[in-house]
């Protein structure tokens, strides 16, 4: 069959393409157990990537610090004033915490919210493409990491969720990715919504009721209605919008974490079994 052999390669490529689409459908969504070859491939490159990523970060930090030299004195003064103010606030808060504990004991109120437990990790690489916001970290099953755990930056702001875990590496889906959605709450007004990533490294909070009273500057944290522990800071409200004719409000959220300069992260190892 000369005709067949002529098109053999095209047919071959077509079948590979179909197989790839099937693989996409199968593996999409994360949370799947990573196969042995995948885990092995990842663990070979993890150390190399780690070194190179650190080098890149070092160079970029160096350039940035040169740029910042001029404003250092000014920022220092500003920060020192803020530290003084925060010290006073802290004393007040300590008293409130003590009072809270006393009252809880008096009421025999059961505190289900245990303290979050974290494991520190280093970022070893980010997604090479422009469409997906994922990054890899250098701990995996060897440290007891499981899919679905929340990932925080050094300061404790939420940045993502572990999706796939290899032996000594894991993939993390960043909250600014289009595919990410986190159940969130406004800490002042207790308005519930879902925080999604948008295309430009920002966040949108959707499914807000029309009577939601959240305003610019409110702090958004994870709510108690997801698998993540509650109270992980996500970001601040930039503006609240309502599309004409819609029964729901939306809010644009500015993430608290700086996604461009991540280096060390914390993985929250407590995870709830209920909810998504």
């Amino acid at each position: 069959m000369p005709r067949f052999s002529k098109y053999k390669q095209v047919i071959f490529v077509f079948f590979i393409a179909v197989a790839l689409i099937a693989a996409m459908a199968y593996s999409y969504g994360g949370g799947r157990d990573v196969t042995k070859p995948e885990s092995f491939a990842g663990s070979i490159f993890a150390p190399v990537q780690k070194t190179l990523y650190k080098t890149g970060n070092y160079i970029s930090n160096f350039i940035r610090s040169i740029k910042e030299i001029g404003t250092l004195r000014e920022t220092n003064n500003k920060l020192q004033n803020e530290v003084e103010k925060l010290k006073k606030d802290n004393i007040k808060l300590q008293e409130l915490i003590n009072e809270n504990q006393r009252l809880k004991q008096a009421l025999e109120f059961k505190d289900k919210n245990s303290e979050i437990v974290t494991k520190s990790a280093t970022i070893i690489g980010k997604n090479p493409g422009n469409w997906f916001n994922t990054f890899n970290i250098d701990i995996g099953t060897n440290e007891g990491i499981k899919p679905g755990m929340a990932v925080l930056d050094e300061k404790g702001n939420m940045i993502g969720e572990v999706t796939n875990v290899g032996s000594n590496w894991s993939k993390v889906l960043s909250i600014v990715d289009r595919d990410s959605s986190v159940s969130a709450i406004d800490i002042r007004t207790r308005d519930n919504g879902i925080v999604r990533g948008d295309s430009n490294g920002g966040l949108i909070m959707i499914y807000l009721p029309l009577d939601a009273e959240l305003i610019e500057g409110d702090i958004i944290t994870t709510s108690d209605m997801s698998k993540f522990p509650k109270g992980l800071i996500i970001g601040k409200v930039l503006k609240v919008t309502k599309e004409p004719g819609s029964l729901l409000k939306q809010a644009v959220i500015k993430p608290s974490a700086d996604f461009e300069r991540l280096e060390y992260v914390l993985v929250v190892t407590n995870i709830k079994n209920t909810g998504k």
Partner: protein
Amino acid sequence: MRIIYKYLLVLLLIILQSTLFQYISFFGVKPDTVLVVILSFSLLNGQTEAIYLSLFGGLFQDILFNNAIGVSTLPLLLVSYVSGIISKNVFKESTFVASVFVFIGTIVYNLIIMFSMVLMKYHFDFAANFTDIAIKQAIYNTVIIIIFYKYIVIFNRYINDSRKSLFKDM
């Protein structure tokens, strides 16, 4: 045996792309050097090589970084395979020809990714993202190919020379 250098180059670029090249983004868009190099080799050596290289490079990228396996392999395979076929009719070693291929190839590559994102029920604004990412990346990749294509041609000649001499010895 020099052919292995080609695969090592692709591997090296994947690792650099995920680490050092994260810091060379312009207007929020990173170049895709893996696509540029695999496309150039497909242009120079034809479609059979396009299949091998794109499967190798694409699957490695997907396994290491992407949540859906195949999401960058599929566009890489289709784009480089088609340019491998078309390349028979053009003067391959001209930088201008290569830059046209890379410009159109990058746009098609991004369109196929957007298509697979629609299949996976991603929420995104098609038109805005197309200009925001696809066009910018196409321009960025074209600049890279204009600067580096002559070195890729030399590198490719070096690899192919060794293959010919191998056959002569036999």
